[in-house]
Protein backbone atom coordinates (compact mmCIF):
# COMPACT_ATOMS: atom_id res chain seq x y z
CA UNK A 1 0.00 0.00 0.00
CA UNK A 2 2.69 2.45 1.01
CA UNK A 3 4.66 1.23 -2.00
CA UNK A 4 1.77 2.15 -4.28
CA UNK A 5 1.41 5.54 -2.62
CA UNK A 6 5.10 6.25 -2.95
CA UNK A 7 4.91 5.17 -6.57
CA UNK A 8 2.03 7.51 -7.37
CA UNK A 9 2.80 10.58 -5.27
CA UNK A 10 5.70 11.92 -7.35
CA UNK A 11 3.44 11.92 -10.44
CA UNK A 12 0.70 13.98 -8.84
CA UNK A 13 2.22 17.43 -9.37
CA UNK A 14 3.33 16.93 -12.99
CA UNK A 15 -0.09 15.53 -13.93
CA UNK A 16 -1.89 18.42 -12.25
CA UNK A 17 0.35 20.92 -14.08
CA UNK A 18 -0.27 19.14 -17.36
CA UNK A 19 -4.04 19.22 -16.82
CA UNK A 20 -3.94 22.92 -15.89
CA UNK A 21 -1.83 23.68 -18.95
CA UNK A 22 -4.24 21.82 -21.26
CA UNK A 23 -7.23 23.71 -19.84
CA UNK A 24 -5.44 27.07 -20.02
CA UNK A 25 -4.50 26.50 -23.66
CA UNK A 26 -7.94 25.30 -24.74
CA UNK A 27 -9.79 28.12 -22.98
CA UNK A 28 -7.50 30.62 -24.64
CA UNK A 29 -5.56 31.98 -21.68
CA UNK A 30 -2.39 30.75 -23.33
CA UNK A 31 -1.75 31.63 -26.96
CA UNK A 32 -0.79 28.66 -29.14
CA UNK A 33 2.17 30.77 -30.33
CA UNK A 34 3.51 30.84 -26.78
CA UNK A 35 2.61 27.42 -25.55
CA UNK A 36 0.44 24.99 -27.49
CA UNK A 37 -1.77 22.55 -25.60
CA UNK A 38 -0.28 19.18 -24.63
CA UNK A 39 -2.86 17.50 -26.84
CA UNK A 40 -1.60 19.52 -29.85
CA UNK A 41 1.92 18.32 -29.13
CA UNK A 42 0.61 14.77 -28.98
CA UNK A 43 -1.02 15.30 -32.37
CA UNK A 44 2.23 16.65 -33.79
CA UNK A 45 4.05 13.67 -32.33
CA UNK A 46 1.62 11.25 -33.98
CA UNK A 47 1.77 13.04 -37.34
CA UNK A 48 5.58 13.12 -37.49
CA UNK A 49 5.71 9.54 -36.36
CA UNK A 50 3.37 8.47 -39.16
CA UNK A 51 5.15 10.36 -41.92
CA UNK A 52 8.47 8.98 -40.68
CA UNK A 53 10.16 12.35 -40.18
CA UNK A 54 10.51 11.98 -36.38
CA UNK A 55 12.13 8.51 -36.44
CA UNK A 56 14.39 9.75 -39.27
CA UNK A 57 15.65 12.76 -37.28
CA UNK A 58 15.91 10.83 -34.01
CA UNK A 59 17.87 8.10 -35.76
CA UNK A 60 20.34 10.59 -37.19
CA UNK A 61 20.79 12.36 -33.84
CA UNK A 62 21.24 9.07 -31.99
CA UNK A 63 23.83 7.95 -34.52
CA UNK A 64 25.85 11.14 -34.06
CA UNK A 65 25.59 10.91 -30.29
CA UNK A 66 26.64 7.28 -30.21
CA UNK A 67 29.52 7.72 -32.64
CA UNK A 68 30.84 10.71 -30.72
CA UNK A 69 30.53 8.84 -27.44
CA UNK A 70 32.39 5.80 -28.76
CA UNK A 71 35.21 7.85 -30.25
CA UNK A 72 35.62 10.47 -27.49
CA UNK A 73 34.71 8.19 -24.59
CA UNK A 74 36.97 5.44 -25.87
CA UNK A 75 39.84 7.85 -26.24
CA UNK A 76 39.28 9.31 -22.75
CA UNK A 77 39.05 5.83 -21.28
CA UNK A 78 42.25 4.71 -23.00
CA UNK A 79 44.13 7.85 -21.89
CA UNK A 80 42.85 7.37 -18.34
CA UNK A 81 44.04 3.76 -18.32
CA UNK A 82 47.47 4.62 -19.67
CA UNK A 83 48.05 7.63 -17.42
CA UNK A 84 46.67 5.80 -14.38
CA UNK A 85 49.02 2.89 -14.87
CA UNK A 86 52.21 4.55 -16.14
CA UNK A 87 53.62 7.52 -14.21
CA UNK A 88 55.76 8.44 -17.22
CA UNK A 89 52.68 8.77 -19.44
CA UNK A 90 51.03 10.88 -16.75
CA UNK A 91 54.01 13.22 -16.62
CA UNK A 92 53.95 13.64 -20.38
CA UNK A 93 50.21 13.87 -21.01
CA UNK A 94 48.28 14.88 -17.92
CA UNK A 95 49.07 18.60 -17.68
CA UNK A 96 48.37 19.08 -21.40
CA UNK A 97 45.03 17.33 -21.03
CA UNK A 98 44.19 19.46 -17.99
CA UNK A 99 44.90 22.60 -20.02
CA UNK A 100 42.69 21.47 -22.90
CA UNK A 101 39.99 20.51 -20.42
CA UNK A 102 39.67 24.14 -19.38
CA UNK A 103 38.64 25.18 -22.88
CA UNK A 104 34.82 25.06 -22.99
CA UNK A 105 34.30 22.66 -25.86
CA UNK A 106 31.32 24.61 -27.20
CA UNK A 107 33.61 27.61 -27.65
CA UNK A 108 35.36 25.82 -30.51
CA UNK A 109 32.17 25.60 -32.59
CA UNK A 110 33.30 28.39 -34.97
CA UNK A 111 36.58 26.53 -35.56
CA UNK A 112 34.76 23.28 -36.07
CA UNK A 113 32.44 24.84 -38.65
CA UNK A 114 35.46 26.26 -40.47
CA UNK A 115 37.11 22.85 -40.49
CA UNK A 116 34.19 20.56 -41.22
CA UNK A 117 31.41 22.83 -42.48
CA UNK A 118 28.05 21.63 -41.27
CA UNK A 119 28.71 17.98 -42.15
CA UNK A 120 28.46 14.98 -39.89
CA UNK A 121 32.08 15.28 -38.81
CA UNK A 122 31.44 18.58 -37.07
CA UNK A 123 28.76 17.16 -34.79
CA UNK A 124 30.60 13.92 -34.05
CA UNK A 125 33.81 15.83 -33.38
CA UNK A 126 32.13 18.17 -30.90
CA UNK A 127 30.46 15.32 -29.05
CA UNK A 128 33.72 13.41 -28.93
CA UNK A 129 35.60 16.39 -27.49
CA UNK A 130 32.85 16.93 -24.95
CA UNK A 131 32.76 13.36 -23.61
CA UNK A 132 36.51 12.80 -23.69
CA UNK A 133 37.33 14.72 -20.52
CA UNK A 134 34.78 13.31 -18.07
CA UNK A 135 35.75 9.81 -19.19
CA UNK A 136 39.45 10.57 -18.90
CA UNK A 137 39.26 12.23 -15.49
CA UNK A 138 37.10 9.59 -13.87
CA UNK A 139 39.00 6.63 -15.33
CA UNK A 140 42.30 8.17 -14.24
CA UNK A 141 41.00 8.99 -10.78
CA UNK A 142 39.42 5.53 -10.48
CA UNK A 143 42.68 3.77 -11.23
CA UNK A 144 44.58 5.99 -8.85
CA UNK A 145 42.15 5.41 -6.00
CA UNK A 146 42.21 1.60 -6.14
CA UNK A 147 42.98 0.26 -2.64
CA UNK A 148 46.79 -0.15 -2.44
CA UNK A 149 46.28 -2.95 0.07
CA UNK A 150 44.44 -5.01 -2.52
CA UNK A 151 47.17 -4.43 -5.11
CA UNK A 152 49.78 -5.53 -2.58
CA UNK A 153 47.70 -8.59 -1.75
CA UNK A 154 47.48 -9.44 -5.45
CA UNK A 155 51.26 -9.25 -5.78
CA UNK A 156 51.88 -11.44 -2.71
CA UNK A 157 49.36 -13.96 -4.02
CA UNK A 158 51.23 -14.35 -7.26
CA UNK A 159 49.23 -12.28 -9.77
CA UNK A 160 51.27 -11.17 -12.77
CA UNK A 161 50.94 -7.63 -14.18
CA UNK A 162 48.13 -8.56 -16.59
CA UNK A 163 46.09 -10.52 -14.05
CA UNK A 164 46.65 -7.75 -11.50
CA UNK A 165 45.35 -5.17 -13.96
CA UNK A 166 42.33 -7.18 -15.07
CA UNK A 167 41.28 -8.64 -11.74
CA UNK A 168 42.25 -5.98 -9.21
CA UNK A 169 42.90 -2.55 -10.73
CA UNK A 170 40.23 -2.37 -13.44
CA UNK A 171 37.35 -3.69 -11.30
CA UNK A 172 38.47 -1.39 -8.51
CA UNK A 173 38.28 1.58 -10.85
CA UNK A 174 34.96 0.56 -12.40
CA UNK A 175 32.64 2.55 -10.06
CA UNK A 176 34.50 5.74 -11.00
CA UNK A 177 34.59 4.82 -14.68
CA UNK A 178 30.81 4.41 -14.69
CA UNK A 179 30.37 7.77 -12.98
CA UNK A 180 32.44 9.19 -15.84
CA UNK A 181 30.17 7.48 -18.34
CA UNK A 182 27.08 9.06 -16.79
CA UNK A 183 28.65 12.51 -16.92
CA UNK A 184 29.68 11.84 -20.50
CA UNK A 185 26.13 10.87 -21.49
CA UNK A 186 24.80 14.16 -20.11
CA UNK A 187 27.41 16.18 -21.97
CA UNK A 188 26.84 14.11 -25.09
CA UNK A 189 23.19 15.23 -25.46
CA UNK A 190 23.92 18.80 -24.44
CA UNK A 191 26.65 19.11 -27.05
CA UNK A 192 24.54 17.52 -29.74
CA UNK A 193 21.61 19.85 -29.06
CA UNK A 194 23.80 22.92 -29.39
CA UNK A 195 25.62 21.61 -32.46
CA UNK A 196 22.45 20.59 -34.28
CA UNK A 197 20.73 23.84 -33.43
CA UNK A 198 23.55 25.94 -34.80
CA UNK A 199 24.44 24.03 -37.92
CA UNK A 200 22.68 21.02 -39.32
CA UNK A 201 20.48 19.84 -42.16
CA UNK A 202 18.98 16.91 -40.25
CA UNK A 203 18.49 15.67 -36.71
CA UNK A 204 16.19 16.76 -33.91
CA UNK A 205 17.95 20.10 -33.50
CA UNK A 206 17.42 20.84 -37.19
CA UNK A 207 13.81 19.73 -36.90
CA UNK A 208 13.09 22.20 -34.08
CA UNK A 209 14.98 25.07 -35.71
CA UNK A 210 13.10 24.45 -38.93
CA UNK A 211 9.80 24.45 -37.04
CA UNK A 212 10.76 27.74 -35.42
CA UNK A 213 11.03 29.34 -38.88
CA UNK A 214 7.42 28.40 -39.53
CA UNK A 215 6.28 29.29 -36.02
CA UNK A 216 5.31 25.67 -35.34
CA UNK A 217 5.60 25.91 -31.57
CA UNK A 218 4.17 22.43 -31.11
CA UNK A 219 7.05 20.96 -33.14
CA UNK A 220 9.60 22.94 -31.16
CA UNK A 221 8.19 21.63 -27.92
CA UNK A 222 8.07 18.12 -29.35
CA UNK A 223 11.77 18.38 -30.13
CA UNK A 224 12.52 19.50 -26.59
CA UNK A 225 10.54 16.62 -25.15
CA UNK A 226 12.27 14.12 -27.42
CA UNK A 227 15.65 15.41 -26.23
CA UNK A 228 14.52 15.02 -22.62
CA UNK A 229 13.32 11.47 -23.25
CA UNK A 230 16.56 10.50 -24.99
CA UNK A 231 18.54 11.92 -22.08
CA UNK A 232 16.43 9.99 -19.63
CA UNK A 233 16.86 6.84 -21.69
CA UNK A 234 20.64 7.19 -21.61
CA UNK A 235 20.49 7.72 -17.86
CA UNK A 236 18.37 4.61 -17.34
CA UNK A 237 20.77 2.59 -19.49
CA UNK A 238 23.78 3.73 -17.49
CA UNK A 239 22.03 3.04 -14.17
CA UNK A 240 21.17 -0.42 -15.38
CA UNK A 241 24.81 -0.95 -16.35
CA UNK A 242 25.91 0.22 -12.91
CA UNK A 243 23.61 -2.17 -11.14
CA UNK A 244 24.72 -5.04 -13.32
CA UNK A 245 28.44 -4.33 -13.08
CA UNK A 246 28.54 -3.26 -9.43
CA UNK A 247 26.41 -6.00 -7.94
CA UNK A 248 29.24 -6.70 -5.50
CA UNK A 249 28.98 -3.22 -4.04
CA UNK A 250 26.39 -2.92 -1.24
CA UNK A 251 25.63 0.69 -2.16
CA UNK A 252 24.44 -0.37 -5.61
CA UNK A 253 22.79 -3.51 -4.41
CA UNK A 254 19.24 -4.17 -5.54
CA UNK A 255 18.44 -6.73 -2.85
CA UNK A 256 18.06 -9.41 -5.50
CA UNK A 257 20.84 -11.93 -5.09
CA UNK A 258 21.89 -13.20 -8.48
CA UNK A 259 22.85 -16.79 -7.78
Amino acid sequence: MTGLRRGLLPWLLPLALLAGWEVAAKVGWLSARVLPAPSDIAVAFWATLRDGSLPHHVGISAERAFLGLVIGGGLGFALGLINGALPLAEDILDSSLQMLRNVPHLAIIPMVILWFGIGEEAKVFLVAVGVLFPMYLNTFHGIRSVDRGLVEMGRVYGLGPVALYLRVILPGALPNILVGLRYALGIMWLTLIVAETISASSGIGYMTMNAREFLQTDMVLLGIIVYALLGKLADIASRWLERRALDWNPSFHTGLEAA
Partner: protein
Amino acid sequence: MMVPLRAVPDVEEPAATAADGGAGRGLELAFDGVTKAFGDVGVLRGLDLTIPAGQFVAVVGRSGGGKTTLMRLIAGLDSPTGGTIRINGTARRGLQPDVRLLFQEARLLPWQRVLSNVGIARGPGWKERAQALLAEVGLADRAGDWPYVLSGGQKQRVALARALVTEPGILLLDEPFGALDALTRADMHRLLTRVWRQHGFTAILITHDVAEAVALADRVLVLRDGVVADDVAIDIPRNARAAGTPRLAELERRILTAV
Protein backbone atom coordinates in the same frame (compact mmCIF):
# COMPACT_ATOMS: atom_id res chain seq x y z
CA MET B 1 34.47 -32.44 0.02
CA MET B 2 31.17 -30.58 -0.05
CA VAL B 3 30.32 -31.37 3.57
CA PRO B 4 29.86 -28.03 5.30
CA LEU B 5 31.95 -27.79 8.42
CA ARG B 6 29.86 -25.26 10.27
CA ALA B 7 31.83 -25.01 13.46
CA VAL B 8 35.43 -25.51 14.32
CA PRO B 9 35.75 -28.54 16.61
CA ASP B 10 35.95 -27.61 20.26
CA VAL B 11 38.06 -30.56 21.28
CA GLU B 12 41.78 -29.89 21.31
CA GLU B 13 43.79 -32.50 19.54
CA PRO B 14 46.49 -34.50 21.38
CA ALA B 15 49.56 -32.89 22.80
CA ALA B 16 51.74 -30.98 20.41
CA THR B 17 55.39 -30.16 20.31
CA ALA B 18 57.53 -28.45 17.75
CA ALA B 19 57.98 -31.80 16.05
CA ASP B 20 54.34 -32.53 15.28
CA GLY B 21 53.98 -29.96 12.53
CA GLY B 22 51.99 -32.34 10.35
CA ALA B 23 52.67 -33.34 6.77
CA GLY B 24 56.16 -31.91 6.65
CA ARG B 25 55.61 -29.50 3.76
CA GLY B 26 56.96 -26.64 5.81
CA LEU B 27 60.10 -24.81 4.77
CA GLU B 28 63.05 -23.83 6.92
CA LEU B 29 63.69 -20.14 7.25
CA ALA B 30 67.08 -18.68 8.16
CA PHE B 31 68.34 -15.12 8.67
CA ASP B 32 72.04 -14.36 8.36
CA GLY B 33 72.83 -10.89 9.73
CA VAL B 34 69.69 -9.37 8.21
CA THR B 35 69.43 -5.58 8.55
CA LYS B 36 66.86 -3.15 7.25
CA ALA B 37 67.11 0.61 7.36
CA PHE B 38 64.76 3.29 6.08
CA GLY B 39 67.03 6.26 5.45
CA ASP B 40 69.12 6.62 8.60
CA VAL B 41 66.70 4.72 10.77
CA GLY B 42 67.74 1.12 11.37
CA VAL B 43 64.58 -0.90 11.92
CA LEU B 44 66.23 -4.31 11.98
CA ARG B 45 69.82 -4.38 13.25
CA GLY B 46 71.26 -7.77 12.54
CA LEU B 47 68.99 -10.77 12.83
CA ASP B 48 70.62 -14.20 13.11
CA LEU B 49 67.98 -16.78 13.49
CA THR B 50 66.81 -20.14 12.21
CA ILE B 51 63.21 -21.28 12.16
CA PRO B 52 62.97 -25.04 11.52
CA ALA B 53 60.50 -26.38 8.97
CA GLY B 54 57.01 -26.72 10.36
CA GLN B 55 57.59 -24.70 13.52
CA PHE B 56 54.95 -22.30 14.81
CA VAL B 57 56.72 -19.11 15.83
CA ALA B 58 55.14 -16.03 17.35
CA VAL B 59 56.90 -12.67 17.10
CA VAL B 60 55.93 -10.17 19.77
CA GLY B 61 57.12 -6.65 20.35
CA ARG B 62 56.01 -3.07 20.72
CA SER B 63 54.78 -1.19 17.70
CA GLY B 64 57.70 0.25 15.78
CA GLY B 65 59.85 -2.66 16.91
CA GLY B 66 60.29 -4.01 13.40
CA LYS B 67 57.66 -6.78 13.41
CA THR B 68 55.90 -5.72 10.24
CA THR B 69 59.21 -4.94 8.53
CA LEU B 70 60.39 -8.46 9.31
CA MET B 71 57.22 -9.86 7.79
CA ARG B 72 57.53 -7.80 4.62
CA LEU B 73 61.12 -8.99 4.20
CA ILE B 74 60.08 -12.64 4.48
CA ALA B 75 57.22 -12.14 2.01
CA GLY B 76 59.62 -10.43 -0.39
CA LEU B 77 57.64 -7.17 -0.47
CA ASP B 78 60.81 -5.38 0.67
CA SER B 79 64.48 -6.30 0.34
CA PRO B 80 66.87 -6.33 3.28
CA THR B 81 69.50 -3.60 3.46
CA GLY B 82 72.11 -6.16 4.46
CA GLY B 83 72.42 -9.89 5.11
CA THR B 84 70.51 -12.75 3.50
CA ILE B 85 67.27 -14.58 4.02
CA ARG B 86 67.43 -18.27 3.19
CA ILE B 87 64.50 -20.55 2.59
CA ASN B 88 65.53 -24.21 2.84
CA GLY B 89 69.11 -23.08 2.48
CA THR B 90 68.67 -21.00 -0.68
CA ALA B 91 69.11 -17.23 -0.50
CA ARG B 92 65.98 -15.42 -1.68
CA ARG B 93 65.04 -11.99 -2.96
CA GLY B 94 61.78 -10.68 -4.36
CA LEU B 95 58.28 -12.08 -4.04
CA GLN B 96 58.15 -15.66 -2.82
CA PRO B 97 55.66 -18.05 -4.43
CA ASP B 98 55.89 -20.50 -1.51
CA VAL B 99 55.25 -17.81 1.13
CA ARG B 100 51.73 -16.54 1.78
CA LEU B 101 50.72 -13.65 3.98
CA LEU B 102 47.55 -13.20 6.03
CA PHE B 103 47.05 -9.46 6.44
CA GLN B 104 45.56 -7.56 9.38
CA GLU B 105 42.49 -6.92 7.25
CA ALA B 106 41.20 -9.79 5.15
CA ARG B 107 41.83 -7.88 1.88
CA LEU B 108 39.28 -9.86 -0.12
CA LEU B 109 38.46 -8.54 -3.57
CA PRO B 110 34.95 -7.08 -3.08
CA TRP B 111 34.06 -7.67 -6.75
CA GLN B 112 34.72 -11.39 -6.71
CA ARG B 113 32.59 -13.98 -4.98
CA VAL B 114 34.04 -15.96 -2.10
CA LEU B 115 35.08 -18.94 -4.25
CA SER B 116 36.93 -16.75 -6.77
CA ASN B 117 38.64 -14.93 -3.93
CA VAL B 118 39.96 -18.19 -2.50
CA GLY B 119 41.13 -19.32 -5.93
CA ILE B 120 42.65 -15.94 -6.78
CA ALA B 121 45.78 -17.53 -8.28
CA ARG B 122 43.56 -19.61 -10.66
CA GLY B 123 45.44 -22.41 -12.45
CA PRO B 124 43.96 -25.77 -13.50
CA GLY B 125 41.42 -27.25 -11.09
CA TRP B 126 41.32 -24.11 -8.95
CA LYS B 127 37.58 -24.33 -8.31
CA GLU B 128 37.78 -27.78 -6.74
CA ARG B 129 40.74 -26.84 -4.59
CA ALA B 130 39.15 -23.57 -3.50
CA GLN B 131 35.93 -25.39 -2.61
CA ALA B 132 37.87 -27.96 -0.59
CA LEU B 133 39.70 -25.25 1.35
CA LEU B 134 36.45 -23.41 2.02
CA ALA B 135 35.05 -26.63 3.48
CA GLU B 136 38.13 -26.91 5.63
CA VAL B 137 37.57 -23.48 7.17
CA GLY B 138 33.86 -24.23 7.62
CA LEU B 139 32.48 -21.96 4.89
CA ALA B 140 31.63 -24.46 2.14
CA ASP B 141 28.13 -23.04 1.77
CA ARG B 142 29.31 -19.44 1.32
CA ALA B 143 31.22 -20.01 -1.94
CA GLY B 144 28.72 -18.01 -4.02
CA ASP B 145 28.40 -15.04 -1.67
CA TRP B 146 29.84 -11.58 -2.13
CA PRO B 147 32.45 -10.75 0.53
CA TYR B 148 30.44 -7.83 1.93
CA VAL B 149 27.81 -10.14 3.42
CA LEU B 150 30.41 -11.94 5.57
CA SER B 151 31.30 -11.09 9.17
CA GLY B 152 34.82 -10.06 10.11
CA GLY B 153 35.68 -13.55 11.34
CA GLN B 154 34.27 -15.17 8.21
CA LYS B 155 36.29 -12.83 6.02
CA GLN B 156 39.48 -13.84 7.82
CA ARG B 157 38.55 -17.50 7.39
CA VAL B 158 38.13 -16.92 3.64
CA ALA B 159 41.52 -15.18 3.66
CA LEU B 160 43.01 -18.19 5.45
CA ALA B 161 41.55 -20.54 2.84
CA ARG B 162 42.97 -18.30 0.11
CA ALA B 163 46.41 -18.42 1.74
CA LEU B 164 46.35 -22.22 1.99
CA VAL B 165 44.97 -23.02 -1.44
CA THR B 166 48.46 -23.05 -2.99
CA GLU B 167 49.89 -25.12 -0.09
CA PRO B 168 52.54 -22.60 0.98
CA GLY B 169 55.63 -23.75 2.84
CA ILE B 170 55.57 -20.66 5.04
CA LEU B 171 52.49 -18.82 6.26
CA LEU B 172 52.97 -15.33 7.66
CA LEU B 173 50.23 -13.92 9.87
CA ASP B 174 50.34 -10.17 10.46
CA GLU B 175 48.05 -9.72 13.47
CA PRO B 176 45.12 -11.15 11.51
CA PHE B 177 42.89 -11.57 14.57
CA GLY B 178 43.46 -8.17 16.16
CA ALA B 179 40.13 -6.72 15.07
CA LEU B 180 37.99 -9.73 16.06
CA ASP B 181 35.94 -10.15 19.22
CA ALA B 182 37.19 -12.55 21.90
CA LEU B 183 34.91 -15.47 21.01
CA THR B 184 35.59 -15.26 17.28
CA ARG B 185 39.29 -14.97 18.02
CA ALA B 186 39.21 -18.16 20.11
CA ASP B 187 37.49 -19.93 17.17
CA MET B 188 40.15 -18.64 14.80
CA HIS B 189 42.91 -19.85 17.16
CA ARG B 190 41.48 -23.38 17.13
CA LEU B 191 41.05 -23.28 13.37
CA LEU B 192 44.58 -22.04 12.81
CA THR B 193 46.07 -24.72 15.06
CA ARG B 194 44.09 -27.38 13.20
CA VAL B 195 45.08 -26.31 9.69
CA TRP B 196 48.69 -25.84 10.79
CA ARG B 197 48.74 -29.47 11.96
CA GLN B 198 47.06 -30.70 8.79
CA HIS B 199 49.09 -28.74 6.28
CA GLY B 200 52.42 -28.68 8.07
CA PHE B 201 53.50 -25.22 6.96
CA THR B 202 55.95 -23.11 8.93
CA ALA B 203 53.83 -20.49 10.71
CA ILE B 204 55.08 -17.06 11.74
CA LEU B 205 52.53 -15.07 13.71
CA ILE B 206 53.06 -11.42 14.46
CA THR B 207 51.10 -10.20 17.43
CA HIS B 208 51.22 -7.73 20.28
CA ASP B 209 49.08 -10.06 22.38
CA VAL B 210 51.43 -12.13 24.53
CA ALA B 211 48.61 -14.43 25.69
CA GLU B 212 47.81 -15.21 22.04
CA ALA B 213 51.48 -15.88 21.35
CA VAL B 214 51.96 -18.39 24.19
CA ALA B 215 48.62 -20.06 23.45
CA LEU B 216 49.45 -20.78 19.81
CA ALA B 217 53.19 -20.97 19.25
CA ASP B 218 55.99 -23.46 19.83
CA ARG B 219 58.35 -20.58 20.28
CA VAL B 220 58.05 -16.86 20.97
CA LEU B 221 60.56 -14.32 19.70
CA VAL B 222 60.63 -10.94 21.40
CA LEU B 223 61.65 -8.26 18.94
CA ARG B 224 62.92 -5.09 20.57
CA ASP B 225 64.86 -2.23 18.99
CA GLY B 226 65.49 -4.28 15.88
CA VAL B 227 67.07 -7.30 17.55
CA VAL B 228 65.74 -10.52 19.07
CA ALA B 229 65.70 -9.63 22.77
CA ASP B 230 64.45 -13.02 23.90
CA ASP B 231 63.77 -16.43 22.35
CA VAL B 232 61.35 -18.45 24.47
CA ALA B 233 60.35 -22.07 23.82
CA ILE B 234 56.79 -22.79 24.93
CA ASP B 235 57.40 -26.28 26.28
CA ILE B 236 53.85 -27.00 27.31
CA PRO B 237 51.53 -29.32 25.36
CA ARG B 238 48.85 -27.34 23.54
CA ASN B 239 45.94 -29.12 25.18
CA ALA B 240 47.25 -28.08 28.60
CA ARG B 241 47.60 -24.40 27.72
CA ALA B 242 43.97 -23.39 27.96
CA ALA B 243 43.91 -24.44 31.64
CA GLY B 244 46.58 -21.88 32.47
CA THR B 245 49.36 -23.77 34.23
CA PRO B 246 51.88 -21.99 36.53
CA ARG B 247 54.57 -22.68 33.91
CA LEU B 248 52.50 -20.86 31.26
CA ALA B 249 52.04 -17.87 33.55
CA GLU B 250 55.78 -17.85 34.20
CA LEU B 251 56.59 -17.86 30.46
CA GLU B 252 54.05 -15.12 29.83
CA ARG B 253 55.62 -12.99 32.59
CA ARG B 254 59.07 -13.55 31.16
CA ILE B 255 57.96 -12.44 27.70
CA LEU B 256 56.14 -9.39 29.03
CA THR B 257 59.28 -8.33 30.86
CA ALA B 258 61.38 -8.76 27.73
CA VAL B 259 58.98 -6.70 25.61
